[in-house]
């Protein structure tokens, strides 16, 4: 059972709502070990995306994700802009112009997204970045797929793993990003990017679950 463009757009809109709802939390996390703009930057990007959707209506899941990618790249700025932007761009490419999303292509898209973040940011697990949330998410998604999960199941597994992954950044000393300038002082703080990654995946999972029950 697949997911057509409308479902994908709904999931991306749900992600936008989550970003706005958590804007202040992300700003505060970044204020402490960064420069306090992560929530502001993502909100600017996702709000522009929602506006863009009123102007053009993507006809394929890949096109919708690509629209998000280009919007994030041209409006977010900072580190997260290019990183999330590239992630979505790579995901969109793997989705191609297929009419619908499948559990398989969902996992492939997540893996491509991770590949994009690593390609641009060169971070490894343990560097205290969004990679610490996204990497376990991809593995968990693949595992869920292996045990026959549907899209909602795959994304739920990814979201659960991303949340644990984000939590795992708390004790870490940052080796990448702004927090790395603090050295030891970066420890005992949750990484804002890892947190936003887990929030986005949770929004996708919840939206897919709604979509399923609706179907």
């Amino acid at each position: 059972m697949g997911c057509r463009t409308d479902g994908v757009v709904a999931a991306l809109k749900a992600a936008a709502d989550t970003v706005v709802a958590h804007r202040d939390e992300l700003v505060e996390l970044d204020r402490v070990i960064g420069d306090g703009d992560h929530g502001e930057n993502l909100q600017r990007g996702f709000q522009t995306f929602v506006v863009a959707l009123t102007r053009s209506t993507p006809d394929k899941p890949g096109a919708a994700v690509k629209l998000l990618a280009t919007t994030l790249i041209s409006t977010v700025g900072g580190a997260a802009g290019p990183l999330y932007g590239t992630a979505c761009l790579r995901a969109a490419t793997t989705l191609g112009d297929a009419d619908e999303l499948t559990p398989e292509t969902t996992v492939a898209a997540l893996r491509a997204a991770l590949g994009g973040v690593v390609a641009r940011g060169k971070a490894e697990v343990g560097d205290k970045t969004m990679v610490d949330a996204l990497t376990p998410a991809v593995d968990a998604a693949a595992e869920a797929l292996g045990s026959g999960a549907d899209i909602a199941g795959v994304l739920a597994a990814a979201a659960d793993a991303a949340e644990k992954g984000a939590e795992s950044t708390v004790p870490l000393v940052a080796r990448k990003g702004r927090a790395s300038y603090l050295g030891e002082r970066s420890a005992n703080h949750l990484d804002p990017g890892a947190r936003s990654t887990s929030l986005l995946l949770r929004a996708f999972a919840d939206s897919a679950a709604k979509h399923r029950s609706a179907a």
Partner: protein
Amino acid sequence: MKKIINDPSTVVVDSLHGMAVAHPDLLRITTEPAVIARADGPVAGKVGVVSGGGSGHEPLHGGFVGLGMLDAAVPGAVFTSPTPDAILSAIQQANGGAGVLLIVKNYTGDVLNFETAAELAEAEGISVRSVVIDDDVAVKDSTYTAGRRGVGGTVLLEKLTGAAAQRGDSLEAVEGLATRVIANVRSMGLALTAPTVPHVGTPSFDLADDEIEVGIGIHGEPGRERLPLEPADALVARLTEPILTDLPFGDGDRVLLFTNSMGGTPLLELYLAHGIAERLFADRGVSIVRRLVGPYITSLEMQGISLTALKLDDEMVQLWDAPVLTAALRWGV
């Protein structure tokens, strides 16, 4: 939060508007995307020099746009790297046909966004070279980390490369000079107070009345360590020591010493600190042959100072003395 602004979300654009009317002969400013360019640019046949980054560091970078320095600057949101489309527009406005040098401060966001913009420009047939400045000795360097931040050295780099481009050097030559400057410049700063980012509304870090942050950057990041406030002699020594030993600077070196206010530190204190710094450098046999003292790379209203030392060669001295006509830096014209 006490600021003279209307709305945190429009502060950069509103400020650019004021800058545009303040310098009509000098600057051509667009806000969609936000770019500050030389009014008389692009200069045909001249290498273009472009820099940019988050806003809140004024006069960096826009205040350095003009004859003998930058051809265009890209102001992002406060403390946020600009996006590739804005950077691309700046590259286009700076391109006089001889190629464009991008001066990138070493922050993940700046590096990634300028990287993308450079690819887009190259795709348009503009030859682009990028240099990344990372002069902050407060940050321990390592290939496994984001590395050192670009701070005060950026101002000197923009002046020297701008002068080289102005006299007609090739893109390769200007890039070569930039690499040499980056290899010979070191900086470190401290803060007495924290800045307040408009869209955050609260100070970036909380300091007691008798505490300071040593080894701070220009984005309100806390420093490497928090220490008790000390007399000026001790404070300045906390900056000169790591700088002197890092390059290292030593006997007989000819140096440009740049004493910078982070924004809220008044000139009375800044000159006082500069005097101490010159003495401490002289104690090591280093001779200061050029100086810059003032608020040139700031962090909003943060109180504090940074010191930047550049080991000079004859060509750098020449280029430093060369004419410059910008909103924030002018001489020789």
